[in-house]
């Protein structure tokens, strides 16, 4: 007979279970991205669904194809494939042919994650790696920005290009705010930047909704607040200094903050726990490095946007940062390791 109130209970560790698991963290990030995804649907209509859907399909297909039979169910359930596809989709131009988006998702998971040994072993952020691959492979399609769609059901003809075939561009193209700043010295009104009424990638146009998602993630303790804060602060300070130096030539701090993929990159991609430093001091160094590189590439480099390369470069430096910012073990001297 079982006693209702035993005198002694024996358990083995772990005694406390925290609800923080990989699938939960991944799902949280997906929820946090939902407002921005909604904004993408609002501005770009059905095309957004097609592009993001193809990315996710490619990513999940790679996940299924290359997973070992024993771990296949697990790697599907933790939703990293879906998240990588979604993140990649949000960084792509709305008029990108679906087959390219699919290829991007496939490459992001296969070359960005599986080939390194799976989740947790990759050096670079898979979604950004997929984007870098697409940008190097299809430079024209990846920098053709179409204006926001007329109605929800309007689909850009270029979305439906046959596999391996060129996209027919609809004639009208628009420039991104950063492109206009760089090549035509034309500043986009700030309100448009904050709300997202500009040309650009699917998910990067609305700074406000991305920030909301970031706050949700921070409340859920899913991200290290030091990284986005240090990136955004560095960008603001650096561009403020440049503006003081020459206000005509250099973009203002607020413009830098809300234009391009900075919000998306700083909040959702730079904070990827696998590819960013784990130590608090390392997180500050990482963030400052990304911020400086973003402004350097945007202002002095040949490309209008530098968030992707800035984060990838700092990803490469992450193991080194981690190594030099190890906290001193309590009770040990400075020299002993």
């Amino acid at each position, binding site marked *: 007979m079982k006693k209702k109130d035993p005198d002694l209970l024996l358990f083995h560790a772990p005694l406390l279970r925290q609800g923080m698991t990989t699938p939960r963290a991944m799902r949280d990030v997906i929820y946090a991205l939902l407002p921005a995804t909604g904004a993408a649907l609002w501005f770009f209509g059905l095309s957004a669904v097609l592009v993001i859907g193809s990315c996710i399909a490619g990513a999940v297909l790679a996940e299924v194809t290359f997973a070992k039979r024993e771990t296949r169910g697990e790697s599907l359930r933790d939703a990293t494939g879906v998240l990588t596809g979604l993140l990649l989709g949000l960084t792509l131009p709305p008029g990108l*042919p679906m087959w390219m988006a699919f290829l991007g998702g496939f490459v992001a998971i296969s*070359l960005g994650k599986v*080939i390194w040994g799976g989740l947790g072993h990759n050096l670079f952020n898979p979604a950004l790696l997929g984007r870098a691959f697409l940008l*190097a492979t299809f430079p024209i399609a990846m920098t053709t920005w179409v204006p926001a769609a007329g109605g929800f059901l309007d689909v850009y003809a270029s979305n439906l290009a046959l596999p391996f075939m060129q*996209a027919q561009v609809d004639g009208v193209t628009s420039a991104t705010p950063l492109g206009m700043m760089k090549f035509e010295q034309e500043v986009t009104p700030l309100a448009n930047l904050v709300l997202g009424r500009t040309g650009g990638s699917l998910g990067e146009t609305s700074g406000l909704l991305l920030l909301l998602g970031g706050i949700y993630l921070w409340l859920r303790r899913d991200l290290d607040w030091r990284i986005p804060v240090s990136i955004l602060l560095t960008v603001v300070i650096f561009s403020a200094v440049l503006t003081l130096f020459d206000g005509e030539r250099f973009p203002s701090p607020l413009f830098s903050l809300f234009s391009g993929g900075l919000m998306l990159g700083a909040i959702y991609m730079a904070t990827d726990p696998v590819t960013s430093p784990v130590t608090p001091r390392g997180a500050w160094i990482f963030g400052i490095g990304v911020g400086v590189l973003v402004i350097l590439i945007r202002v002095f480099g040949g490309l209008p946007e530098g968030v992707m390369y800035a984060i990838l470069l700092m990803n490469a430096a992450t193991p080194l940062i981690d190594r030099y910012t190890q906290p001193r073990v309590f009770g040990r001297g400075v020299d002993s390791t």
Partner: protein
Amino acid sequence: MKKSDSYEEFIKGIWRDNPVFVQVLGMCPMLAVTNSAINAVAMGMATFFVLVGSSFLVSSFRNWIPKQVRISCFIIIIATFVTVADYTLLALVPKVHKELGAFIPLIVANCMILGRQEAFSSRYPVRLAVMDAIGMAGGFLLALFSLGAIREILGDGALFGIKLFGENFEPWVIMILPPGGFLTLGVILLFFNWFKFKKDEFLAEVAEAERGGG
């Protein structure tokens, strides 16, 4: 028995000990000049000529080459053939020669060639040495051609300059740039290792079944 020996030397270079895909030698020309099939084949032919010629000479002189200075002797022999190949390409196909540029003189430094002289030609009779050189150089040519063909088909939609998919093909620009070489080579190496892994697994299974049955 003798015949099967030279056949063995020939086939091992083509597949089992392929200099590029298995030994991972000669990476410099492999990555640098395979951006189109024609460049890759020209490079492969030049290397083929140099390797077979120098293997023949080294093997013939193997008893007269002093041990202490053998490397310099090999290099002089190789360099002679490279110079011949260089001028022949310049006279026959000046356009390809211009594209290959510095990589033709650099055949001298191809570690696959020197490696074959050191490991094989300087120790075996002429017939075997030449068969080995033909096999190795054939494997190298095959590897260069497959890499160049993949890169040209994806990066340009063409093979030997002939358009395969019509005008609307979207070229994969990365494939004719240096990263494309690394990516393609990596994927092919991945396939080779996977194939070897599967083969070993299969052989182990067969051995297991035989032991169980017997």
